[in-house]
C-alpha cells in the first residue's frame, strides 16, 4: 500500500514545528437557563508528528474543545473569544476561530486537513451507506481523483487499517462489522485524505481492552508512517501513559496543568492532577487498599466557583486567596505549565513533593 505522502513532506519543511496553537479559547452555550461556560480559557499547542492528550472528567469541556477546533460545536454553543491557529499544508497560518462555521474555507479543512474520530462508531457511521461509499465520499470531496481511483484508494485505506479482505469489506455496512472493525473503518475514513491533524475523541472507550490495545497500536503505527499529529481526548490515564507526548489536564473548562507526559505522571504539581493520578487503582498500591478520592463533586455548570475553579475540592486550598484570585498560567519549566496559586506566587507554599512516590 502506497499512499502519497509527498504533500506532507513539503509542509514538514517549514521551520515552525507548531501545527496547532489554541489560545485562551472560550466556548459558551447560551441556554434558556443561563450561560454554560463549557470551555473557559483553554490553551494548548501541538507540534507536528506529536500526540497531545487532553484528560479530565466528564463535563470538563474536553470534547467541546475538540469540536471547537473543527467548528462543529452544536447550537446554542458559540466560540466567544480566543484563537485557534492552524498551519495549513501550504504553510499559511489561519485562525479557525474566526471562520464561518458553515463556510467554504472550514469545509475544506474538515476531513481534508483535520479529521475526527468519535467514541461510538455505530452512531457516527451511516447505517444506510456501505463503508466503501463513506470512505470514497471523503476522498472525492477533497482530492481531485476519479471514482475509480477513489475506490482503489478506499481499498488500500481499509488494508492500511488492518481490515481483512478489504475489497470485499468495501461493500459491507457498518452493522455487519464488529466494534473493533467499525472503529478501524472510521479511522480509514478519517485518514483517507491524509490529514495533518487527527482528533480522536475517546476512540477506545467503548472497546474491550484487547481491542483497545490493537486500535492504539494502529493509531501509533499510522502516525509514525504519515507524520500526522494526533489530538487524543480520553479520561483513561492508562491510555494517556501509553500514547501521549504532551498532556493537558482540564478541569471545568480550563487547562489546569499541561506538560510532557513524564512531568505529568512523575512530577505532577496541580492538586487536581495529583488527585486524579492517586485515584487510579494500581498494581503497586496493593498494601493500601483504600483509593484516594477527591472530595465533593464537579460543581453544576451554572454554579462556577469564584477564583480557582478547583478550590472547593482542593486539599491545599488557601483561604482568601484560592477563592478570590483567578490563578494565572505559570510556567514551571519550558514544557510544564500550571494554573495554581500554590506555585505562581512563591516557592514557599510547595506541597509535599513525595506524595506520589
Amino acid at each position: 500500500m502506497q499512499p502519497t505522502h509527498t504533500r506532507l513532506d513539503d509542509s514538514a519543511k517549514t521551520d515552525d514545528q507548531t501545527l496547532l496553537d489554541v489560545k485562551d479559547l472560550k466556548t459558551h452555550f447560551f441556554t434558556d437557563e443561563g450561560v454554560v461556560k463549557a470551555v473557559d480559557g483553554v490553551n494548548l499547542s501541538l507540534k507536528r508528528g506529536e500526540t497531545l492528550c487532553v484528560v479530565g472528567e466528564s463535563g470538563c469541556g474536553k470534547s467541546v474543545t475538540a469540536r471547537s477546533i473543527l467548528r462543529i460545536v452544536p447550537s446554542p454553543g458559540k466560540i466567544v473569544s480566543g484563537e485557534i491557529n492552524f498551519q495549513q499544508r501550504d504553510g499559511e497560518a489561519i485562525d479557525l476561530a474566526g471562520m464561518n462555521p458553515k463556510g467554504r474555507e472550514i469545509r475544506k479543512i474538515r476531513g481534508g486537513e483535520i479529521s475526527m474520530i468519535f467514541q461510538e462508531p455505530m452512531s457516527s457511521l451511516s447505517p444506510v451507506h456501505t463503508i466503501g461509499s463513506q470512505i470514497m465520499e471523503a476522498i472525492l470531496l477533497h482530492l481531485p481523483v476519479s471514482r475509480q481511483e477513489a475506490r482503489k484508494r478506499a481499498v488500500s485505506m481499509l488494508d492500511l487499517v488492518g481490515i481483512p479482505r478489504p475489497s470485499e469489506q468495501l461493500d459491507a455496512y457498518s452493522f455487519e462489522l464488529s466494534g473493533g472493525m467499525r472503529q478501524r473503518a472510521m479511522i480509514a475514513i478519517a485518514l483517507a485524505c491524509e490529514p495533518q491533524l487527527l482528533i480522536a475523541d475517546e476512540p477506545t472507550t467503548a472497546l474491550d481492552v484487547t481491542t483497545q490495545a490493537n486500535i492504539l497500536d494502529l493509531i501509533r503505527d499510522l502516525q509514525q508512517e504519515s507524520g500526522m499529529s494526533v489530538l487524543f481526548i480520553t479520561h483513561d490515564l492508562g491510555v494517556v501513559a501509553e500514547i501521549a507526548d504532551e498532556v493537558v489536564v482540564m478541569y471545568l473548562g480550563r487547562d489546569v496543568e499541561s506538560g510532557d507526559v513524564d512531568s505529568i505522571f512523575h512530577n505532577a504539581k496541580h492538586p487536581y492532577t495529583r488527585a486524579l493520578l492517586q485515584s487510579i487503582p494500581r498494581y503497586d498500591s496493593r498494601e493500601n487498599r483504600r483509593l484516594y478520592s477527591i472530595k465533593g463533586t464537579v460543581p453544576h455548570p451554572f454554579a462556577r466557583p469564584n477564583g480557582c475553579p478547583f478550590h472547593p475540592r482542593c486539599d491545599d486550598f488557601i483561604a482568601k486567596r484560592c477563592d478570590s484570585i483567578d490563578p494565572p498560567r505559570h510556567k514551571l519549566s519550558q514544557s510544564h505549565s500550571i494554573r495554581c496559586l500554590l506555585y505562581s506566587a512563591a516557592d514557599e507554599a510547595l506541597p509535599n513533593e513525595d506524595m506520589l512516590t
Partner: protein
Amino acid sequence: MKDKSEIMLADSIEPLLEVRNLHMQFPIRRGAFRRTVGFVKAVNNVSFHIRQGETLSLVGESGCGKTTTGRCIVRVYEPTSGQILYKAEEQEPIDLAKLDNRNLRPFRRQIRMIFQDPFSSLNPRLSILQIVGESLKVNRVASGSDLEDRVASLLKRVGLRPEYIRRYPHAFSGGERQRIGIARALALNPRLIVADEAVSALDVSVQAQILNLLQDLQEELNLTYLFIAHDLSVVEHISHRVAVMYVGKIVELATTEDLFTNPLHPYTEALLSAVPKPDPRLRNKGVRIRLEGEVADPSNPPSGCYFQPRCPYAEDRCRHEEPAVREIEPDRWVACHFAEELNLRGFEAIGQSMKR
C-alpha cells in the same frame, strides 16, 4: 476489609452460593414462523462458588457471558440447565435455578443487583424515596414515616444527604446516582450483591469513591459480591478471587494474587498484557500480546478449545480436544491442556519497573 489470605485460608467457610454446570442458551429464530435455527450458548457449563464475605469477580470481553451469568443468579433468566445452590441462613442449600417466581420471593430479598448505567437504571419519574423505598413497601417491611426514616438512613449510609429524599434522579450526578442504586440494593439487608459493571460508566475520581464505598459496606455488613467487570485494574483492586470467562466458559479461576502474578491460561496472559499501565516509563517495555482475529461466535464456536484460533501457543491437540476445567492446585482452576508447561507472564513481569 478482610485480608485476602484470611479468606483463602477460610476453606471451612461454607460457600454462600455454588453454581454447578450452569448453561444458558438463547434460541436464534428466523423466518416467518420464527423457526429456531440454532442456539447462542451464552453461558456454557460454568461452575464456581462464592464464600460468605468474599468478592468474586467475573472478567472477560463483551459477549463472553459474564452478565448473563449474573442475571441467571438473580434469576432474571431461567437457566437452560445447571444448579444455582444458595445457602440461606440456617437452611440447607436450595437450588434457585428451578424455583418458580412465588418460591423465589424470599431469596429475591437476599440477592440484589447493582447495574452499570446509573442513568437508565433509575426511573426518572420516581423520587428517591420511591426508588429506594419501593422494595421495602412491596415486601411490607416498612411504610409511612418508618419507611422515610429507613430510606433516609440508607441514603446516609451510602454517603448522600437524607434531605435529598424527595428529589428526582435528574438532579444527581453519575456518581450520586450510582450511590442511589447501591442504597436501593441494600434496602432489604441482602447477603449477596451482583454488581454488573457497577463502576464502568464512572470517571476515575468518582469510581474511586464508589469502590471505597463498596469495600466499606462489605466490611460493615459482611456482604458478598459477585463483581462483573472488564476493567482489570479495578478487578485487581476489589476482588479476592477472579474468574476469567471466554465465549461462555470459565477458562481460569484463581485468587487475585495468583491470577495477576502467575496466570495459567494464555487468554488471561493476553488480557493482562493489554491493560494500559498508568506510567509512561513502561511504554514499549515488557511484552505485549496482541490477539489476532475476533472473539469466537458463541452460536458457532470453533472446534476443540474455543480460544485456539487466537492462541499464540495453540498446538494440534487444542484443535481437536476441548480442554476440561481442572483444579490444578487447591482453589485454582484452569481450562488449558498446557497449563503446567506454559510459562506465562503476569502483571509484574509485563511491567517490571512498576515497583519502584
